[in-house]
């Protein structure tokens, strides 16, 4: 036998084997035709003919499989091409919708949720269900981003990741790399000040470098001062009601704390670098639009600002010192001390980008101005007293306005977002329930004939209902979810697009907190009340459905001729 003939016979054998394999898996409905075709293969005259015949057979097999699959898809879930499923008590119940219909509805819902807007909505709502806690997957995303930024030597992204990473060692590495690449990012030293889950204040050597780079800013001194005093200052201050002379003396005896606080109060600027953090966040988020809003905003939420109580305690120490000077008749020293406190408060209010810092700045000024007004009054300086009183009134008005606007009960935007958040969360729940019902219903109906042959008809009916209406609920939920999430999407877009600091920031926060309100019903103090409310509503809805269904059914039966 020549090599060529041997090769052909191997090919022919292979072709024959492939065809018989296909026949074994041929759909039942027309397997006879597969057998008929395969039986002819032994008649072929040459290896080429055998291969050609076999290929034709395999083509026919593919066509048969596809047409069987299509025919199967056109049937309702749970039925088979051999003529449906018969249960013990006669023909089994089957869903009304075909598999194709179900598949199309589920695919449409999935397509909507896979859209970039859908993915962002899912990420945000999922985060709100986890009470905006950074998850392990968020950590993974941040880690990947950090690795890429290291490779690309992207100082901005390195700083961004460093501010958000929960791994302090890794954060420190990234921070050093970012500052090494671009010293402009030295402000990150003062901004990574995580207080949860573990307190991680900025290291003293970082603050020393920051003070050297930004010597006229009060914030690096305030951050170091808090570490120099630590909780001891607060403890002494709050140990027993109003602070007494002994407490002030004890505080003043902490020379390191006093020195740093005096430098802070004497600094020309107050900048907690929040605006820089916001700008960096915007820049990175615009580039990495797939990042979860939680990952993006967690850095802003944990942005380090000086301890505000510590700052107020020093104001009290200074005011106490001024009171002592006034009592001793040294009005000039008293005025100087109070003016310094007042000036610091004004600087803090003007230089800060967060509401709380602005409010504390005003509170510090307010205290100093009150004392100044009293001082001028006792000294008979009426004009100065009136000026101090005017400042007091102005601060009071502005602080009231800000507090009023900040109160979610009064903010129209916050209220709007709360209402919309309810819709978003309801549709999200509908999506989850719909998807769960669809999966459970289809699985139960498909597996029923083999696995649960004697199951009660009620359960089978429930499975059919779930298989019929679950996918539709999922689709309705998905459309509603996306539509109701649009205002939140717009808030994110506006935040990414605009460069206006505080208002965008607050709008975004209103949006995020609005979404958090619903999960709080489930996890907060009133969780049991809300759970029972939901159960009661669900049971009432079910009862109504059963009653209406029963009424309609009995009417239909009555209308039918005997």
């Amino acid at each position, binding site marked *: 036998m020549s090599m060529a003939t041997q090769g052909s016979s191997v090919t022919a054998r292979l072709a024959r084997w492939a065809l018989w394999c296909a026949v074994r898996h041929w759909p039942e409905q027309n397997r006879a035709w597969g*057998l*008929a075709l395969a*039986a*002819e293969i032994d008649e072929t005259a040459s290896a080429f003919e055998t291969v*050609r015949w076999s290929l*034709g057979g395999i083509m*026919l097999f593919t066509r048969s499989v596809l047409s069987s699959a299509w025919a199967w898809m056109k049937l309702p879930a749970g039925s088979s091409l051999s003529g449906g499923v018969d249960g013990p008590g006669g023909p089994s119940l089957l869903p009304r919708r075909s598999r194709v219909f179900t598949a199309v509805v589920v695919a449409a819902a999935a397509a909507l949720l896979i859209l970039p807007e859908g993915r962002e909505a899912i990420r945000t709502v999922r985060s709100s269900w986890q009470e905006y806690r950074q998850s392990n997957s968020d950590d993974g995303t941040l880690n990947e981003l950090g690795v890429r930024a290291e490779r690309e030597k992207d100082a901005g992204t390195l700083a961004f990741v460093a501010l958000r990473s929960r791994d302090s060692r890794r954060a420190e590495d990234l921070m050093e790399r970012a500052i090494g690449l671009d010293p402009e990012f030295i402000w990150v030293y003062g901004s990574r000040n995580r207080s949860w889950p573990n307190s991680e204040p900025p290291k003293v050597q970082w603050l020393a470098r920051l003070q050297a780079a930004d010597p006229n800013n009060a914030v690096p001194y305030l951050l170091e001062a808090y570490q120099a005093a630590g909780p001891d200052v607060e403890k002494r201050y709050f140990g027993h009601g109003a602070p007494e002379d002994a407490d002030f003396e004890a505080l003043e005896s902490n020379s390191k704390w006093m020195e740093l606080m005096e430098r802070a109060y004497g600094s020309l600027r107050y900048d907690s670098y929040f605006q820089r953090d916001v700008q960096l966040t915007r820049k990175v988020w615009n580039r990495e639009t797939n990042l979860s809003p939680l990952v993006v905003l967690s850095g802003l939420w944990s942005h380090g600002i000086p301890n505000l109580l510590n700052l107020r305690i020093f104001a009290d120490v200074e005011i106490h010192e001024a009171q002592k000077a006034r009592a001793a008749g040294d009005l000039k020293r008293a005025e100087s001390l109070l003016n310094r406190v007042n000036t610091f408060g004004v600087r803090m209010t003007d230089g800060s980008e967060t509401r709380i810092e602005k409010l504390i700045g005003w509170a510090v000024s307010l205290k100093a101005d009150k004392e100044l007004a009293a001082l001028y009054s006792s000294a008979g300086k009426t004009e100065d007293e009136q000026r101090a009183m005017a400042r007091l009134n102005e601060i009071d008005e502005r602080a009231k306005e800000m507090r009023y606007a900040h109160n979610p009960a009064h903010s129209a935007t916050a209220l709007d977002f709360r209402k919309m958040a309810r819709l978003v969360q309801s549709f999200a729940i509908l999506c989850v329930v719909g998807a769960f019902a669809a999966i459970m219903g289809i699985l139960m109906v498909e597996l029923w004939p083999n696995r649960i042959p004697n199951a009660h008809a009620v359960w089978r009916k429930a499975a059919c209902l779930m298989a019929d209406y679950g996918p539709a609920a999922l689709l309705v939920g998905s459309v509603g979810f996306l539509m109701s999430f649009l205002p939140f999407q717009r808030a994110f877009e506006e935040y990414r697009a605009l460069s206006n600091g505080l208002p965008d920031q607050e709008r975004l926060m209103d949006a995020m907190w609005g979404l958090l309100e619903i999960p709080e019903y489930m996890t907060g103090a009133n969780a049991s009340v809300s759970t029972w409310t939901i159960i009661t509503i669900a049971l009432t809805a079910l009862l109504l459905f059963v009653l209406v269904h029963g009424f309609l059914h009995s009417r239909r039966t009555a209308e039918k001729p005997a």
Partner: protein
Amino acid sequence: MGVRIRLSKQTLQVLDTLLARPGQWLHGYSLSQSTGIPSGTLYPILMRLDKLHWLETRWEESKTPGRPPRHLYRLTGTAREWAREEIRVAQEQHFWKPAEHEA
């Protein structure tokens, strides 16, 4: 005439071959050889004709042990008339003409 269907050129070719030996049973492979139509096209045509009841089929027991039985085909009596009519119409409309060796 019974069921009028739209016939492809290959189907007309198969009908023409079956009509050439009206009462005789033919195997799939010999039909493929006579018409030059590959198996992947021939069998869907046979399946369609069978579904329309134009075709009679039967299994032929194998004479060689170990070999599977073979399938045989021929046109039914009424189908022969319809097939002739279809072929005539197709030829008149110049849609199809028989292969030269068969003409």
